[in-house]
């Protein structure tokens, strides 16, 4: 219209200052701490929400799409300091919730593969960016150079502390280095990304076990703060007769040996016990050590295994069998060598506390399976005693150990979990320590809102099939057991896969104050994503509940976009006659307070 109308957004703005601003009118960037914005981000960007480290996934996938691999790497690194590593072995909580993986939307975006891609393809000219704070003159000791320890050390160094890491093993990396087989995680990569951390003047003392070589108390005196991040190292025992026999390996030790290049005896027939990643790693390693008949044996049923389908498939592909609903009761041996293992059958039962479904042994259901070796991969527990005997009650949230100035992070606090959680824990711990030493918070998380106008992607991208990961074939796998099985995406593959991301960080909103309810948007919606609603409940925590829909014309208060179903196709945008639909880019960012 030739003149700005009484209903034009700008005018609304001027008309009434204390009125609500429509997102469309937000020209400058907005930082919000409103619970509704945090809630919106949480429901809108499921991948980021699922990630313990809150990685800005749509953000870095967009960068990959723009072939800015360096920037993509930085976005990752700002949330987790080992992108290349996580890009290979992350447990991928994000992909389970990816909107693209919902029924009828196809398969989830290969978020993890893409993460790996930024590490693989970042240009030689790539530089790492660290927003360094002025030195504080204070010193912090970190015990354990595993994911949690490294993460804490890094952030503390950035915050201006002098950091020393004490590591009992010969190499840093902890589980990464000794728990995960090389065919899944190349060693040079681990070292490279660890060195990127150490470069910030962090001092690394290897072969130094706190507790035996140097005492925690001493550290407590010498340093302003101490982080205990020794992880979970003491193996959970089988606790059945015969476990002391030769050729009964514990998963972690077994992997350690394999990773140190040794060849522990496995024989022809191998029985692996356990349902996690380690169990599968052990089994696959056993295959590579020449075992002919390898089986993974689990107490519950297959669906309770804590591994993702690709792992399952690779294992099956390598000929590994899975036997379920059995638990070992006795290991049988002849002159101290394993000859077989006795199992009890189990059945599933319900309990009222997590994990809700458990397996219980069935009496007199024993049966015997002959085998040459047994690998018990039952996970590990933190060895608190080993570090110090004075710990009194861990405060998991606050990372407090009970001893002033001594903090804890990672598996040591949470018990055996996954790498990304450990990293998230380490970083959080660093923040706690900073607040403790400085006396106030120096950083805060806010929602960054920016007007965006376009959808950034054509509808056709929604129909691209997930790009599979390239792998080497069986011969090569057995030829050299350390050959990395997955070989990564090519530049083109990465670009193709990056197109698939819906960019859920873009928020679409209808302004009911300008809407005439003509339902043009609903008409073109590809999903049940735009709704005629009567109300939207606000939860006690300040976030929104589910829209209350209605078909009664006289009850329709607004036509609203359901962020949880919206696949960001932008059809609505193109048809709205009143231009009352806005796109806003939402990001979780850290700003200095």
């Amino acid at each position, binding site marked *: 219209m030739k003149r700005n109308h009484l209903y034009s957004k700008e005018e609304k703005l001027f008309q009434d200052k204390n009125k609500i601003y429509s997102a469309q009118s937000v020209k400058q960037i907005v930082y919000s701490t409103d619970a509704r914005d945090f809630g919106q981000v949480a429901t809108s960007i499921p991948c980021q929400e699922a990630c313990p480290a809150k990685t800005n996934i749509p953000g870095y996938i967009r960068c990959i799409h723009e072939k800015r691999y360096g920037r993509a790497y930085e976005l990752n690194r700002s949330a987790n300091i080992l992108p290349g590593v996580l890009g290979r072995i992350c447990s991928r909580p994000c992909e389970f919730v990816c909107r693209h993986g919902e029924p*009828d939307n196809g398969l989830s975006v290969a978020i993890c593969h893409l993460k790996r891609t930024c590490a693989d393809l970042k240009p030689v000219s790539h530089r790492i960016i660290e927003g360094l704070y002025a030195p504080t003159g204070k010193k912090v000791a970190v015990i354990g150079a595993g994911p949690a320890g490294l993460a804490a050390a890094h952030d503390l160094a950035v915050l201006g502390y002098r950091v020393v890491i004490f590591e009992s093993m010969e190499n840093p990396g902890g589980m990464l280095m000794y728990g995960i087989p090389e065919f899944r995680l190349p060693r040079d990569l681990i070292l490279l990304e660890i060195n990127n951390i150490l470069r910030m003047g962090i001092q690394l003392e290897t072969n130094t076990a706190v507790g035996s070589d140097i005492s925690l108390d001493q550290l407590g005196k010498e340093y302003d703060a101490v982080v205990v991040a020794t992880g979970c190292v003491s193996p959970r025992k089988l606790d059945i007769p015969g476990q002391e026999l030769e050729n009964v390996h514990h998963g972690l030790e077994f992997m350690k040996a394999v990773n140190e290049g040794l060849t522990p005896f496995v024989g022809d027939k191998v029985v692996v016990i356990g349902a996690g990643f380690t169990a599968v790693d052990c089994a696959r390693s056993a295959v590579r050590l020449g075992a002919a008949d390898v089986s993974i044996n689990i107490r519950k049923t297959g669906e309770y295994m804590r591994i993702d389908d690709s792992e399952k498939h690779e294992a099956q592909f390598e000929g590994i069998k899975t036997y379920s609903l059995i638990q070992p009761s006795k290991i049988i041996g002849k002159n101290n060598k394993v000859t077989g293992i006795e199992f009890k059958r189990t059945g599933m039962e319900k309990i009222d506390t997590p994990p809700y479904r458990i397996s219980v042994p069935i009496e007199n259901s024993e049966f015997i399976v002959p085998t040459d070796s047994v690998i018990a991969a039952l996970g590990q527990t933190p060895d608190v005693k080993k570090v110090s005997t004075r710990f009194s009650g861990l405060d998991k949230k606050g990372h407090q150990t009970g001893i002033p100035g001594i903090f804890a992070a990672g598996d040591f606090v949470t018990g055996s979990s996954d790498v990304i959680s450990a990293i998230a824990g380490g970083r959080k711990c660093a923040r706690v320590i900073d607040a403790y030493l400085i006396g106030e918070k120096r950083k805060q998380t806010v929602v960054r809102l920016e007007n965006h106008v376009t959808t950034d992607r*054509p*509808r*056709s991208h*929604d*129909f691209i099939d997930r790009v599979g990961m390239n792998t080497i074939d069986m011969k090569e796998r057995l030829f050299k057991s350390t050959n990395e099985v997955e070989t990564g995406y090519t530049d083109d593959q990465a670009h193709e896969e990056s197109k698939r991301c819906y960019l859920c960080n873009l928020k679409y909103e209808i302004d009911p104050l300008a809407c005439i309810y003509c339902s043009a948007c609903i008409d*073109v*919606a*590809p*999903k*049940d994503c735009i709704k005629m609603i009567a109300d939207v409940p606000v939860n006690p925590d300040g976030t929104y509940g589910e829209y209350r829909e209605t078909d009664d014309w006289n009850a329709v208060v607004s036509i609203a976009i359901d962020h949880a179903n919206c696949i960001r196709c932008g*059809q609505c945008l193109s048809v709205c006659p009143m231009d009352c639909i806005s796109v806003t880019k939402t990001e979780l960012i850290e700003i200095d307070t």
Partner: protein
Amino acid sequence: MKDIDIVIEICGSAGEGTISAGEILSRFMSGQGFEIMSFDSYPAEIRGFGKCVAHTRISSNPIYSPGKLADVLISLNDNHAISQLPTLKESGILIYDSQPARPHEEDKSVAGRTKPGMISYGIPLNMLAHKAAGNARGMNMVALGALSALFHVDKDRFTDSIKARYGKKKQVVIDANVNSFLEGYDWAKENIKKSDPYSFEGVNLPEQKEKLIVNGNQLVAQAALDANLMFYAGYPITPATKIMEILSKELPKHGGTLLQTEDEIAAIGAVIGAGFGGKRAMTATSGPGFALMTEFTGLSVMAEVPAVIIDSQRAGPSTGMPTKTEQSDFNSAVMGGTGDCPRIVLAPADTKSCYEATVLALYFAEKYQTLVVVLLDFFLSNSIKNIDVPKKPAKKYRIANIAPKKEDLKDYKRYKITKSGISPRAVPGTPGGIFFSTGLEHNEYGRPDYSQAGHLKMTQKRYDKFNAVLVEAPAPEISAMGRGKVDIGVISWGSSAGAAREAVMAAQKEGIKAASFSSMMVSPFPEKALIKFADNCRKILIPELNFSGQFADFATCILKRPVEKLNFITGRPMASEDILQKMREM
């Protein structure tokens, strides 16, 4: 080598391309050499919730009716398709959208409602359409693609005909449609396991003749042009509007004029004006419009000014059901209006005779200087049939005005009493032919005359025209009777005749001795022929698409004997199955 006779129904919401999908399908099939007959039904709403059904019968043999039940139902919209399911055969095939934008509640999905024995193929129509063109508009094409894949229709030929259909449109439109079609085709080939017997492969077809794919409206327009129409006035009304739209394009090329008036009253007025000027003129309308014109129809008869009204009947009374077919204007067309008002009424029985009827109408109107009504109905107007190209009317039919001779002009009586009832008619501009016309009763000169004798004489004169008309009227269609009496004689008119004919053929196959009679000439009616036919039948059955049996009553008066009525007002065309069923019961 085998035969095929299959009825395919596409059902969706108005605006989902349901109708155009049907059109594309039938055009393509006709091009392949099949006999096709298709019929759409759609609501008054343009978009929103109106139900549309494109019904197409495809056969390798001649067909006379659209067929009642469908072999295949393509659902573009579950709500509507559910209500369409009853017309799907027990063993019919359903093609539905397996991945709609929104989930269904229990029993709200057509797939869920299929009866056992039916075969249903789920195709993600919506998703594939989006995939092909970024929006749902291509669902209809996706469905056609899937259909082609399932019934072994030649992919490339079909895409060609789609391109042809959208030839004039922008390239993006063509691509969108073609891509949607291919998405559907490939997906079905890839994912559907065929478990039905239908296939268009290796069907034997009659030798190819040049065919015209038309509906009644198009043929009426074509005929009018061929029969020298010079003026058309009209007002949009379903289902006659199309006639005006075509003429508006074509008439000027023939030196004629088209006028879209503000209403039917003005339309018929303008037509009569043009007729008075000596030009062939007509208008087309439907029941409600015809009712508005009634007063003018009287003037046309009274003042003996040629006028042709095409009345495409729809379900009534009043606004009724604008998009449903019915034969319920018989009475108002034959008898409506004020006074003793003889008018000529023609009712074509099928698409191709719409042409003949229109030519005759303009010819009769001019020659007999009176009103001629052609009774089409929604079905004839809109159902598409592929027919042999009709041959152009002879000169006799194109120029028929009986102009006054020299001696007539000496003392020119515009309304001169003659044996045939036709008075030589001078058109304005004829020297010495000046006369006065009026709606008042008048004498031979046209002057008002209220005398008893005068009114009787003139009324008689107007009725006398009938005898002459009957002489050159088209003969009724009567099926071969064989020797001796038949048990059932089926007498029908208008669009019901095709179904009647098929029913009788089927009955004969079943061993029922039956014969059929139908006449395009409705007023005046060929009574002698009718009586002769009836005398040869033990029982008479008269099927028609109205509630009261308007024509049956009319025929009973002629036959003076009871007849069986068979009436439907379902809004759907007459079905041979129903007639046959009735015959079995008789």
